[in-house]
């Protein structure tokens, strides 16, 4: 009786061991054979999306239908905007972004420079044909006024210095 029990226990152990090993072998095979996970196009935004969805779920989970819902909706939007702001801030705080911006500006200037020059020349010609003062001429006059003002100030300073000296001498 005891021999029969021991034999059946041994057989059961063997069967269990075989089952475990085969399961492990299958698992190894399946995991090795599994194709690599496809790239997640939303990986960059995933934290923001998850945060938003969690917030949404939490809001609905805890909220009875009352005007408080609007408050929670506002809080949710604030957090959502803040999260976006943080993500955008991180994206803009990179050399790649700065480089891209620099290049865009460079392109803008390269396009704008000849257009600006030609437009200015055309306006200048049109205005002089009409016998009117051009922008360049008005700017030059304004500059002269500024310079005159400066000269006057220097004269004023000189006069005041002389007056102060005279006052001291009198005293």
């Amino acid at each position, binding site marked *: 009786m005891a021999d029969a029990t021991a034999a059946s226990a041994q057989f059961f152990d063997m069967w269990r061991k075989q089952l475990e090993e085969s399961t492990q072998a299958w698992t190894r095979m399946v995991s090795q054979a599994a194709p690599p996970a496809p790239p997640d196009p939303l990986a960059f935004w995933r934290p923001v999306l998850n945060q938003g969805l969690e917030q949404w*779920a*939490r809001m*609905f*989970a*805890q*909220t*009875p*239908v*009352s*005007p*408080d819902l*609007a408050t929670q909706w*506002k809080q949710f*939007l*604030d957090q959502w*905007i*803040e999260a*976006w*702001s943080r993500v*955008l*801030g991180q994206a*803009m*705080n990179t*050399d790649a972004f*700065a*480089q891209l*911006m*620099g290049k865009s*500006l*460079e392109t803008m*200037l390269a396009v*704008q*420079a000849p257009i*600006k020059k030609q437009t200015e020349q055309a306006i200048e010609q049109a205005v002089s044909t009409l016998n009117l003062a051009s*922008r360049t001429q008005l*700017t030059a006059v*304004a*500059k002269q006024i*500024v310079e005159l*003002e*400066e000269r006057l*100030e220097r004269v004023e300073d000189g006069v005041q210095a002389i007056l102060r000296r005279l006052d001291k001498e009198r005293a």
Partner: protein
Amino acid sequence: MGQERFADVVERFTNGFASGGAAASPETVKQWQEELDRNVRRLTNLGKLATAAEPRTGQTPREEIYKRNKSRLYRYASSRRHRTPILFVPNLGISRPYIFDLMPNGSFIEHMTREGFDFYLLDWGVFGPEDNDLTFEECVTKILPRMARKVLETSGAESLSVLGYCMGAPLSASFVASHPEIPVKNFINMAGPIDFSQIGLFGLWLDKRYFDVDRFVDTLGAVPADLVKAGFKLLKPTMDLSTNLNLWWNLWNDKYVEGFTALNKWANEYVAFPGEFFRDWVRDFYQGNKLVRGELVFGGRPVRLRDIRCPIFVVGAKEDYIAPPACVRALIDAVGSQEKDYIELPGGHISLIAGRGAATHCWPKVSGWLAPRS
């Protein structure tokens, strides 16, 4: 758990509270009434906002003391309990200085005059193409000394305090450091960038590897107001969204709407940079960090921050992304003063100086530090 409750909410949306025979509580009914009332007021204020006249700003009484080209020096009416006058130097270009005197009971200048300070504001003005040759050096060696002398002349005081905000701080620090003959008793830096190696996003965008300032200025002549606006908007792209969301949320509140209209007027009024000034500002400060390095020479005089020996007070804002606190705080280590204090307050670059938070946190600190020294 969450899905069950979500289902409950959908159930209530579709069938109301009738299931189970429970009626809405009086408190909920009251809340709904309040919400309805707010929405009515929101719509009323929205109509007012669309048709309202331009808000009145800068109402603290003042007189023009001196003008030089576009720049003006204003002296504000006050009881003048303190003997030492204050020369307030804000940023040149970018925005108008009425943010410091936005509206009654919400104005830094009004606070300072109520505290009995003889307050002078330097308004740099709005520059035109005829000012494109204005340089940083000219501001430091010609305009600021003249303004300081006018303050001393009109106040009859023997010395003055200089308070620089934003770009006004490096401008006035350069002036104080290079003009020992002007008796400056105290110097305050509010959110003014000093160490440009810690300036943040603008520093990266204006880095010489990516931004050719010479080409920029040579092509455009000046930096147009629209471009200045675009740069600042890009710094915080979600700002307009959150501003409008907060406006809608607080639209029922008349006080909020009043403050918003005044602030909004200021926030949309950008000012162009004179070309040569911008060239100097970017090349010597953002790209060269020459102020902290002691490499600036203006009017033949070296600008060394350690030559500043008067008591200084530096105020940084925790969430300032235009002049981050570390970049502002650098003045403390750079000057030769014995007495120097630094505080970091909640808020951003603008909320440090304007708004309810500023009235609570910042203004009393500034007037409190200055009063015993004036």
